[in-house]
């Protein structure tokens, strides 16, 4: 078969005709992005966009809130109402936004350092309140943008630029923290489980209550290289080898370490009253009583005024 026939079989669109399948939801004028080659964030963002499409949400009503760091840049690349806020404070920002306009689908998309170190307090409290927001946390075990320092997720013995002799701090088990704090939906996937991750994101988008999804993702530049002498791809291969899916696992008992299994799955998916539902049910009868009382007072005042006028 000669080249001419090849062209006849595979018709390629011209450069002008070519477009990215997610063009409508990405800020193409900001491409190329700043993420390193081999980073898992591209896959995470793709899964997020596909998840939203699958969930069939109204894109005009979706707000994406990020904190700081590599994952924090997601807000800047997605073509929705997007807010790139301060370090660790994306969750309360999103909480305010959701409570002020309950029609919005508010998604916090940020990294493990942002959400669990400086923002840890906000995360556990938002989960406790069961605020109706979705939190997608990309866990790459390290502080990427600031140059590979220790994160609250860095496994024991892993090297980082602030743990030159190996990390001696016990890491957080993110799904465990979210579940123990009261989240309505808790799942963990790696950046390889794209279909399942997309499904989880779609599920969370339409689910009420606090939804938490951890994505275990490779940091090629400062984690893989420092700890394995390899690339992001090597780390992905490692994830492939080590991850198993077990939906029935207890999320509080599945920490991630340097060489053990990475248990993935949808661990919690339950319906319980959200913060706003509790507010509504809590205040409704009391407010009605308050209104009744005010009405009674008003009538009483009228009576008194009438009386005093008639006495005049």
């Amino acid at each position: 078969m000669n080249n001419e026939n090849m062209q006849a079989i595979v018709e390629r669109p011209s450069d002008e005709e070519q477009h990215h399948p997610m063009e409508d939801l990405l800020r193409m004028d900001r491409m190329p992005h700043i993420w390193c080659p081999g980073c898992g964030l591209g896959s995470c963002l793709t899964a997020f966009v596909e998840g939203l499409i699958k969930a069939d949400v109204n894109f005009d009503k979706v707000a994406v809130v990020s904190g700081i760091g590599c994952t924090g840049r997601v807000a800047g690349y997605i073509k929705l109402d997007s807010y790139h806020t301060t370090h660790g404070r994306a969750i309360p920002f999103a909480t305010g936004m959701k409570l002020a306009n309950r029609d919005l689908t508010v998604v916090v998309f940020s990294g493990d350092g942002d959400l669990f170190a400086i923002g840890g307090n906000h995360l556990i409290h938002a989960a406790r309140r069961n605020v109706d927001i979705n939190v997608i946390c990309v866990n790459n075990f390290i502080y990427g943008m600031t140059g590979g320092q220790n994160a609250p997720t860095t496994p024991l013995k892993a090297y980082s630029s602030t743990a030159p002799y190996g990390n001696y701090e016990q890491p957080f088990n993110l799904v465990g923290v979210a579940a123990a704090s009261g989240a309505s939906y808790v799942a963990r996937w790696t950046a390889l489980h794209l279909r399942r991750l997309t499904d989880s994101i779609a599920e969370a988008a339409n689910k009420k209550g606090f939804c938490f999804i951890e994505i275990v993702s490779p940091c090629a530049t400062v984690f893989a290289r420092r700890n394995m002498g390899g690339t992001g791809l090597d780390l992905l291969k490692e994830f492939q080898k080590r991850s198993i899916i077990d939906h029935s696992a207890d999320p509080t008992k599945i920490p991630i370490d340097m060489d053990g299994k990475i248990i993935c799955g949808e661990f919690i998916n339950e319906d319980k009253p959200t913060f706003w539902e509790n507010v509504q049910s809590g205040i409704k009868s009391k407010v009605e009583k308050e209104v009744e009382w005010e009405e009674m007072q008003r009538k009483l005042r009228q009576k008194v005024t009438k009386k005093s006028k008639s006495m005049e």
Partner: protein
Amino acid sequence: MFKQSKLYGEFFMQGDIACAEGALSVGCRFFGGYPITPASEIAERMAFRLPLLDGVFIQFEDEIASMSSILGASWAGVKSMTATSGPGVSLMLENIGLGMMMEVPCVVVNVQRGSPSTGLPTSWGQADMMQARWGSHGDYGSISLCPKSPQEFFDLTIVAFNYAEKYRLPVFILSDAIVGHMTEKVVIPPVEEIKLVERKYTKKKPKDYLPYEVVEDLIPEFAKAGDGYRYHTTGLTHDERGYPVMTEECQKICVTRLVEKIKKHADEIIMLEERDIDDADVVVVAYGITARTVVPAIEKAKKKGIKVGLLRLITVWPFPEKRIRKLAQKVKGFVVPEINLGQIVLEVERCAAKYVTTKSITHPGGGIHNFNDIIKAIEEVAYE
């Protein structure tokens, strides 16, 4: 449920409560806060009243979350507020900076107490004056209002919201524990008599909309979340599209505008109360509760034959430079009493330095000025 505040008439009301009622009458429907003396009553009142008005009250885990949440609520198009005291503001400052950079309308009430650190929680001070201006890192223009009574706490809360909406920034109300906890007559007008300023919502098509367009009045049009504009906003230095641009040129345009938009409108923002200023030899510059404590001293000095006037700063930031400079050219000097060890006096000095001297009467907090100290200072300046 009610859609509007039904409260109006004359009340015997605490300052903090008046502040909460002021916010409600101007349409504040989101309050995120954390309890702290002497500002807790504002949160408590909001917790009671907001559900009656279809509003949202939420007590957060800390002040950082509170400040962050009101920015989010404001982006969703709801007038929002938080109230705290000195240590709380210290925690909020990073996100106040974010509010300045993103240009988010909201109100931060600081009912000041003795400081620094935990200081005097149940006692008063005025030592956060400079913090309100320069607290967050970086350059930005800011607005701070200083009430002297519960009535003014009510009125200025309304003004603060109107300024926040108009100029798109977090506006400070710098009260203090005395005004916050003082109970006096407060007149609340009917809702329809309250002047409301709404933010400039854009009418442009989403494709033409630039969230940080440099316009004539330097205040960009606002688009709230969920309206289909799909804009981006960030705390990073950004261009007109709201996209991060890390260049010298962009920093210049972005940050200069934040400062200039307040400078440009300073004359409309500044509110002053002047008493017996025209023929005065000595002008006492005071604000907040101090402006009331100095009045008997001024009266006594007048009886002694000294021509002394009072210039009360209702707006502390932006500082009324023009007015002070003009006064400095004809008076003998200024006396600046304040419940801190000399903060606003620096500004007065800066404006008056070329012409006359300024005398600072300080008080570390926990009390108010001794009457005689002020008379002595007025005499010193008058007979210098």
